[in-house]
């Protein structure tokens, strides 16, 4: 009897509609021709009226990339596959024309403001209501900042990287490349040569930043590589929480994104860095989508300092990202909380590195990977305890959740201990959303997608609870949107 097939399978069709942030804006854009050579770097530097030392640094980076990076090629140890990237087929600079020197919101291109509206960015009044200061990066040039005054009174500097170069060159010069050297890896090296813009934060000694600082990144010009550069310095005894949320419009060909983020926490300082990454993942066949090769690293430079990374990665065709902490100061703490979701043909190879150098240093890693469709999810993490790190401890928890039977989850932990007093714990689990759990929730009236979503959000809770509240809600929504069509 045909109608008697009493099973929970109920197909759900997925259309392109799903990437609801897929739109582009018509803004005059100044684009440098495709390709990369010394001239392009000089052009970028000149466009930004940079001082000589920075141009020299860029050129030094470029030379290293050209001579060594290109020869040895991109890192090949990660579990990701993508077509060869032609680095001469990329625009290395794009700036919205009318946004070159906005004095206030009125000077900002209305279309751009509209784009922010669509993204739901709380710029204008909404920003104030939400208590959020926004340094909005539209392609490469920072177009508007709010809350600047209030922060200024506290001595907190929150501006675009380019402005920081102009107005606070000493701090930039002191810390740029101090955590991620220009020669660090292929992509960081490229970024050091061509970086466009990004955020800069300095929190003076003893100041606790009263609001969450927030930046939205958005890749908007076709085939424009984005090379953000972010630098956050928390001086002695200070605290700052920084949020980064990302969306990008649908594009046919893949887009390269190679950012570098450096964090420095001095003695007793704390930096909390949260990311929601929702770039275009490509279509169901795996075409298009952002290639996200990011180097994020923090240095707990001073005693009792703390750096905490929280990330929810749902977007991009490829995610290659290992936010790390160098635990240099005694009693310093490093944390990494991550939920990475791959659906359809998405690939993520992500994790962290905790490098214990100081005494009594402590690190915590909670990494959760969700694989659906044909997605491939790899956790790659390194815990390294150097001989100097007396009484270091690490706790690592890696959980994988599989949805369907065509996806993959992999866990690749590297542990290197050179001090016998170290205490390391590693827990790992792989699970599937069980039919019993689904049946239970659906028996109470939730439909299949809602039931999946509730189970997955619950499973991710340990990470979500590390996010600021509004972000946690948004993160739940992102998982939901990203998983549409993955169940059924």
């Amino acid at each position, binding site marked *: 009897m045909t109608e008697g097939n*009493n099973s929970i*399978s109920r197909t759900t069709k997925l259309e392109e509609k799903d990437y609801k942030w897929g739109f582009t804006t018509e803004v005059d854009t100044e684009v440098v021709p495709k390709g990369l050579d010394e001239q392009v770097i000089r052009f970028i530097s000149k466009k930004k009226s940079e001082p000589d030392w920075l141009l020299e640094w860029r050129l030094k980076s470029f030379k290293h990339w050209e001579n060594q990076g290109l020869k040895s090629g991109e890192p090949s140890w990660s579990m990701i596959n993508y077509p060869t990237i032609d680095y001469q087929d990329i625009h290395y600079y794009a700036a919205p024309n009318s946004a070159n020197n906005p004095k206030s919101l009125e000077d900002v291109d209305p279309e751009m403001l509209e784009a922010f509206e669509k993204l739901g960015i709380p710029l204008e009044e909404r920003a104030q209501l939400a208590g959020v200061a926004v340094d909005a990066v539209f392609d490469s040039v920072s177009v508007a900042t709010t809350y600047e005054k209030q922060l200024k009174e506290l001595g907190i500097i929150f501006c675009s990287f380019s402005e920081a170069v102009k107005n606070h060159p000493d701090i930039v010069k002191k810390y740029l490349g101090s955590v991620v050297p220009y020669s660090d890896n292929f992509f960081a090296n490229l970024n050091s040569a061509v970086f466009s813009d990004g955020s800069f934060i300095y929190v003076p000694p003893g100041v606790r930043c009263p609001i969450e600082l927030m930046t939205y990144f958005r890749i908007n010009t076709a085939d424009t590589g984005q090379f953000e550069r972010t630098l956050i310095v928390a001086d002695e005894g200070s605290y700052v929480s920084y949020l980064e949320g990302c969306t990008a419009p649908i594009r046919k060909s893949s887009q390269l994104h190679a950012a570098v983020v450096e964090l420095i926490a001095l003695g007793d300082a704390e930096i909390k860095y949260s990311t929601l990454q929702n770039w275009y993942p490509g279509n169901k066949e795996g075409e298009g989508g952002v290639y996200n090769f990011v180097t994020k690293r923090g240095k707990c430079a001073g005693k009792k300092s703390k750096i905490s990374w929280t990330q929810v990665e749902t977007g991009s065709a490829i995610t290659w990202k290992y936010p790390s902490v160098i635990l240099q100061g005694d009693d310093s703490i490093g944390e990494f909380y991550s939920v990475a979701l791959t659906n359809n043909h998405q690939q993520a190879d992500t994790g962290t590195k905790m490098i214990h150098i100081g005494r009594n240093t402590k690190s915590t890693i909670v990494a959760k990977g969700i694989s659906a469709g044909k997605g491939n999810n790899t956790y790659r993490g390194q815990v390294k305890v150097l001989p100097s790190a007396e009484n270091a401890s690490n706790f690592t928890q890696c959980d994988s959740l599989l949805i369907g039977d065509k996806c993959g989850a992999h866990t690749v932990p590297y542990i290197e201990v050179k001090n016998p007093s170290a205490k390391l714990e590693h827990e790992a689990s792989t699970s599937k959303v069980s039919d019993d759990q689904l049946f239970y929730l659906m028996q109470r009236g939730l*439909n299949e997608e809602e039931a999946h979503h509730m189970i997955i959000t619950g499973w991710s809770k340990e990470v979500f609870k590390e996010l600021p509240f509004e972000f946690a809600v948004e993160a739940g929504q992102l998982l939901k949107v990203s998983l549409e069509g993955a169940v059924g």
Partner: protein
Amino acid sequence: MQLGKLLTIENLVASVTETGEKIIKDVSLSIGYGETHVIMGPNGGGKSTLVNVLAGRSSYTLDSGRIDFESNNLISMTIDERARAGVFMAFQYPSEIPGVRPWQFLKAATDSHRKSEGLPEYSVRDFSKIYDSNLKEIGIDSELMKRSLNDGFSGGEKKRNEIFQMMMLKPKLALLDETDSGLDVDALKAVGNAVNKLRDDRRSFLIVTHYQRLLDHVKPDFVHILIDGKIVESGNHKLVKKIESSGYESFS
């Protein structure tokens, strides 16, 4: 469909999806509005299978037969459609859902029911009021509900939580799958009281049990004995006494 019936099962045959083993061999049963039916029988007779099939569990396959729920063909409905139409099952072994708070879960469940009835969602305030008062009535410590759903709940606490959910969702048909197993005297009484309080001329119950003890609190209208996938005898509550005194052997 007979007038005045909430549920009508005709010649139901069902098997285990994975193995194909037939569990329900031929069951016909109809439940009128406001009636409380009890199914008793030895282990493996198909009691739990029957209620799970009614709820739509995919580990069982319906081979033939017909199930009408009000004017709907229940078989063609998904699990959640059945739930929203008013079929509730109190689980024998409720799942643990890590990271999901009971409150959050029940709010979502309640909202889904209200939405399908064309009603607005409860405000957090209104919902909490109903939630708290039902919680108190069934005797669940509110501290327990700060944990993840069923996570670290004792057997008895899980059962109380099932009945609590029934009180919240107010189903048309409540299927109680061995809710009384593993309950102490107090919990049994609380469950019995909750069921009795919900009984009215519209709401029906199908209670699966091994024991008479719940039936001391909840007096059924009909009792059926299910052995080897077939209902071998039906009667009123006096049938329970007969089972207690002479076991199932006299029926087979």
